[in-house]
């Protein structure tokens, strides 16, 4: 039996790298959560099939990149495919559910998950697809303080923050944003004022879907593009919007970063921190068990202090 040796000293550069990893995970969660929270805030709809749109984005990107050899065309295809799938689903199915209660919505969107999964399998087969980072973004770069970090992950952080800024601008400064906010506040009133509410809803839904598709394509490059890839992320995205406050983009951003950093640092630090006063193999087991529930503990704590979430308007 080998002897366990643990490295207890945690260098500053490793800690900085783990914080970057947490930010990157958080930004990716934000792309998922933004669409989810927008749809819930504006239409009052719980959309479990949001993870399927993430999967659609990843598959569209992988298939297009394989056919054309260009990752960037794949990225464009993922936005288009997810937005189109989102609009289609909104017009064909979800439109009928706005007036119904949440249980009906959950049932219908759960059925959509199954249909999306089987349709994807039918189209692409049961084996995971290949999707890799474009050559121009491959490899790692040197950052200050001796940190080596993959260029592609830095790009994800950049894209996510840019999308966040874009959304704040869209919601806060444009005519469409005014309508979205008005629709959130009182949908009968803005319909009475002559805004085509049906078109607005389709548009918002397609926007949320496109963001999920973008996340799927960006993350699919790091992970495995396979049927069912959307559901684990969906659960995290729900945790994010509950923490951030349902309907709030700002809440989604803060919640996503909190969840990303908490999860990553918990996984990285807890087992070795516990190793200081436990025997190593026990510390590993207990540490990873606690790390896996850390974000749910965080969610519970936030809900105790602020039952509507950090930036939530409604309870």
């Amino acid at each position: 039996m080998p002897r366990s040796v643990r490295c207890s000293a945690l260098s500053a550069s490793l800690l900085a790298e783990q914080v970057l990893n947490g930010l990157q995970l958080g930004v990716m969660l934000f792309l998922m959560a933004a669409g989810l929270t927008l749809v819930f805030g504006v239409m009052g709809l719980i959309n479990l099939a949001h993870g399927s749109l993430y999967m659609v984005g990843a598959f569209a990107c992988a298939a297009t990149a394989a056919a054309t050899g260009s990752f960037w065309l794949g990225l464009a295809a993922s936005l288009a495919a997810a937005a189109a799938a989102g609009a289609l689903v909104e017009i064909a199915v979800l439109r009928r559910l706005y007036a119904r209660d949440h249980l009906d919505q959950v049932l219908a969107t759960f059925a959509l998950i199954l249909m999306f999964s089987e349709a994807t399998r039918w189209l692409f087969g049961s084996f995971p697809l290949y999707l890799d980072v474009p050559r121009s973004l491959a490899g790692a770069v040197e950052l200050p303080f001796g940190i080596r970090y993959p260029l592609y992950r830095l790009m994800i952080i950049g894209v996510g923050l840019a999308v966040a800024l874009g959304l704040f601008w869209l919601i806060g400064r444009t005519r469409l944003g005014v309508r979205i906010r008005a629709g959130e506040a009182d949908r009968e009133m803005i319909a009475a004022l002559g805004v085509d509410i049906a078109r607005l809803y389709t548009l918002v839904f397609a926007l949320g879907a496109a963001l999920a598709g973008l996340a799927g394509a960006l993350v699919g490059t790091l992970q495995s593009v396979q049927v069912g890839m959307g559901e684990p992320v969906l659960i995290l995205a729900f945790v994010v919007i509950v923490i951030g406050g349902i309907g709030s983009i700002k809440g989604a951003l803060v919640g996503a970063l909190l969840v990303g950093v908490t999860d990553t640092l918990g996984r990285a630090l807890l087992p070795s921190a516990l190793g200081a006063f436990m025997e190593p193999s026990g510390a590993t087991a207990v540490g990873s068990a606690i790390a896996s529930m850390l974000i749910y503990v965080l969610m519970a704590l936030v809900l105790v202090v602020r039952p509507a979430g950090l930036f939530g308007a409604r309870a």
Partner: protein
Amino acid sequence: MKPTMTAVLAAMALTAPALAEPVKVGMITTLSGGGAGLGIDVRDGFMLAMQQANNPDLELVVEDDQQKPDIAVQLADEMIQSEKVDVLTGIIFSNLAMAVIPSAVAQGKFYLSPNAGPSALAGSGCDPNYFNVAWQNDNLHEAAGAYANDAGFANSFIMAPNYPAGTDALTGYKRFYEGELAGEVYTQLGQTDYAAEIAQIRDSGADSVFFFLPGGMGISFMKQYAQAGVDIPLIGPAFSFDQGILQAVGDAALGVKNTSQWSKDIDNPTNKAFVESFQTEYGRLPSLYASQGFDTANLLLSAMGKAEVTDADAFRAALEEADFASTRGDFRFGPNHHPIQDIYVREVVKEGDVYTNRIVGVALKDHADAYAAECQM
């Protein structure tokens, strides 16, 4: 009337050995969801063997367990009670196997496992009617530990998901590995981002990384590992390097050593014919799961040629002989009905456009599992 009836029955009894009883097989396997690739390969391998044997007495029913234990149990009840199957097979995942197998064998059915080999069924929980045609879960990890010694690695970082098969994997590796550990990490089951773990690996000063991350988890890890630019050699069991997964990982897997009881280049006529006919039939290369499905069907067919399934003792004895040509070459059962077989070290290579494995050595010869001694039948 009555004497005539008795005579007819007697005549029937006399002729019975000539008219073989049909054998009905119920296959419960994973055909949808993220783990579907494994079940599909097992099914396709099994059906290929059936098609080649062309034995009209073998009847197959296939159902999808959706990788859910409750559905697997429901299907098993249905197959035993309504379909009246004689033999069950097909389950991929150990948690489903534990839910189905003990009750199926308790009802007198035979179970031939084409994949899952939980330790609970190899040791004190073994059963005369349960046969595993693939491996005991620990075997490939044990072989990886043995290979690490042979390769001169003395400071491994080891990692697996935090669930029973994950802890078994690390235990199996440590059972044979003799060096020190640079780190031991349990990840979350279904985790898709490994940035935190990769940073730890780079920082740990390890000379090798052993990981067991089946399915999509392994794809994610290997891609991210390559992108992070870490060059510490990887070792793993074949589950992260099968034919279905490799194409999705691509260059990131090239050169990685992995342990398997099967490889497409094992040099024997059965294997050559199997690889060729599988490719012709399905248009893709077979995986180890496909070979396991193929061997399971051939084991069953060999027993059918020797005994009636209605005579459980004779049928069991026929299965124990394992008198079939395995794709793995030498194959026999240990006292607990688990395989005794060679486990190879393979290397991921690219042949034309296809990523695949080739054998570079033998990790463990005639390897049996660690639990056989606890099995009392």
